[in-house]
């Protein structure tokens, strides 16, 4: 019994210390940023183990101040993955500035628009909401007599949107996105430089990773599916 208590206390204190140290590092890095010591601040933020949206966001600011716009873009996109809905506009504003600095005209598609808003909700929340509403839909299908058609239609439409959102979130987990961090890279038809070059990617191009083999990623970008070297990409 005593052993269990000691182990539990050790575990709780470790978690508490980690949280305390992490917060301390975060605040110290904020101070360094305020003193315009951007490189040092970035290094300090980087030591935080499980970085949250605020840490990623601040790292993006540091990279931007250091003139490393691709990495600022990368960090802000990482921040966006976990950021609450209220912070989305702030991050989007900075991302737009980074694209401007990179002279990169980002193509906006309806899918990215949907993804933007879906990102604001956690997958778990979307899943639970969908299941509850789906159950209600079937219960109503059997039980309700009055306003049945209208209510069922509304529920069906809402649930369809929810299902799309869940699929989008799953897709982002299974096929993560990556950003090209080198000025120009070649896309090969196989996982080796001896294969044919089937296309080229430029700095800050955002692509989807299909799978990995050793130090090569199979990617998909603008209808090009090919292989690129892992050291030219950073996963968002």
């Amino acid at each position, binding site marked *: 019994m005593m052993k269990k208590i000691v182990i539990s206390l050790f575990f709780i204190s470790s978690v508490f210390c980690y949280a305390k140290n*992490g917060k301390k590092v975060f605040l110290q890095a904020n101070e360094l940023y305020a003193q315009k010591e*951007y490189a040092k601040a970035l290094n300090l933020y980087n030591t935080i183990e499980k970085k*949250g949206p605020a*840490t990623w966001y601040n790292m993006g600011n540091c990279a931007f101040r250091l003139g490393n716009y691709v990495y600022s873009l990368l960090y802000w996109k990482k921040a966006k993955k*976990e950021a609450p809905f209220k*912070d989305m506009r702030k991050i989007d504003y900075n991302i737009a500035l980074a694209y401007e600095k990179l002279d990169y005209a980002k193509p906006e598609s309806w899918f990215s628009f949907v993804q933007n808003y879906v990102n604001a909700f956690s997958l778990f929340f979307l*899943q639970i909401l969908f*299941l509850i509403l789906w159950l209600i839909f079937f219960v109503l299908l059997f039980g309700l007599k009055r306003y049945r058609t209208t209510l069922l239609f509304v529920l069906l439409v809402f649930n369809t949107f929810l299902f799309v959102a869940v699929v989008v979130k799953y897709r982002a987990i299974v096929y993560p996105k990556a950003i090209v961090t080198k000025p120009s890279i070649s896309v090969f038809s196989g996982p080796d430089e001896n294969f044919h070059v089937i296309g080229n990617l430029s700095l800050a191009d955002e692509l989807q990773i299909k799978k990995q083999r050793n130090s090569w990623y199979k990617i998909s970008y603008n209808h090009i599916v090919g292989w690129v070297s892992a050291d030219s990409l950073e996963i968002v």
Partner: protein
Amino acid sequence: MRIVGKLFLAAVLCAHFFSCFGASTTPSITLRVLSADSVPIKQVGAGVPFILEVSMYNIYRTRKPDIKGIEDFYTGQSGFQMKTINGKSNIKYTYNMRIDKTGTYKIGPAQIREKGKKVTSDVLSVVVGEKQIFKNGVGQTKKTLSNVMLRMSCDKKNVVVGQKVRCFLRFYYMDDADVTLDRILTSEVDDLRQTEKKGAFKGKKTIKNNLYHYLEWRWNVYPEKEGEIIIPAHRADFSIREDNGFLGLSSFFRFGYEKKHVFSNALKLTIDPLPEHDKPVHAVGDFVHFSASVDRAVAKQGDGIVLTLELEGDADLKNLDISELQNMPESLRYYDSKNYIVDKDADLKYKKKRFEFIVQGMETGELEVSKQEFTYFDPKRRKFKTLTTSPIMVNILPPSVSKTSILRQASAVAKAMADRQDEDDILPLDKKGRWHSTGERKINFWLFMLLALIPFFAFGFLRAKKWFNALLLKYTPHILRKNAFNRASKRLKQAKRKKDFASLYGIFITFFSERFTLKENAVSQDSVVKILQKHDFSEEELNNWRQFFNMVSSYMFYDKDKSRKLDPKMFDESIGWIEKLRNKL
């Protein structure tokens, strides 16, 4: 036969004497080009040194010939070789030459005066191409040249005026070659600024299955004029050991070493002019930062404030100059002070250059140092870009103001400047947000799909059951008929357990519908009585049935009349009726 032999001998002797004394007695001059290794070449490489060999035969005087058109290409070194027989000499002059542009050039004729007569050679046509081509096709290099090589390369060959080109010079020597590099000779190139060479960096490389060691020098060049520029070949002088004689002491005493030299290739750069632009262009390269700052924001009238413009970028910073400030108000006078380069460290992406100006406020009040623009051409993106500093407010006070007042005003100005700086900038740090990740919780995809499909399946199952019953009723009435009593009993027992009085009516309707193959809506009190009459039920039994069924019918609505007391014996009575019907029907 003997006569024929004598005649043949005489002919041979005549031919020999004629060739020795007759044909070769006339003075003559010939010109030809050789590679730096004295191998005949048919095309000279642009920027690659070559030798012009002037051979003079049957000459009495050893004077240098006059060669037309040699001045522009002669690099200042020459050689001389002479053989004299019977007072006549065969002389060879060699001139080290280099031509830096491709094309065909005329050299010659070479001319001397011999006994008052002019002896003239033919005009030599020298073809200059991008590469040196030997006369017998493949290069005939000496053995030592495969042991030692000098190669020059650059990171790009087509650039714009002012763009940085990184150059590399590698002196390769084979793994087993005993080579000592003595010196490297370079040449200045017009219209090209070259930085100091850094190195030597050591390395190894396998070329055609041979392991070479190399020494590498790196430097940058910045073209200053458009057109074609040749970076001429470099020359490396080295000593190489030819044998291991003298009891193995040759290397110690430097015996057995031969002095040699090797030339590198030349590099051709094509320089394009900068595209036209409406603003003055300060530089060519990649710049990441341009800012302005002052050493103090508050000063007395006439005092000097140091204004520093700081530029961080990858370009020809040494030649970059900002000597004027843009849109300065007349009330602020400035002087160009000094500029210096800050070397790159771990925190910087590129080197920085700082330009310092002394600014004097000539009037009191809050004055603005306007925003400064720096326009440069980004060769990677082939675009002009402009970096802009934020404007700076300085507060110029009358000459007699206390120090405390200056400090108070300085903090106010600093705050105002900080506010202004954020206007066109990224948004500030997130200090209150979640700094740590909570990780993303999720239901496993397949479990989620299963949960999502459960209501769907349930709905489908109920629909299917209903449909199946309808089919059963339609196509297998005899099975339903046979099992109608058992099913009714079972349902009644379930209803009894649940005390579901309302379901009794439905159970009997379903029973009669199944037993007599009727539609459920066709079953009523009257139709049931008629059926019972047909099966020999007495009048008393029929009356009992009527009373019982009326009661069952009324229980259907018991929810609406909760004040009514329900009789639990109804379930037993219902089961009894089913048993009675089983016996009679």
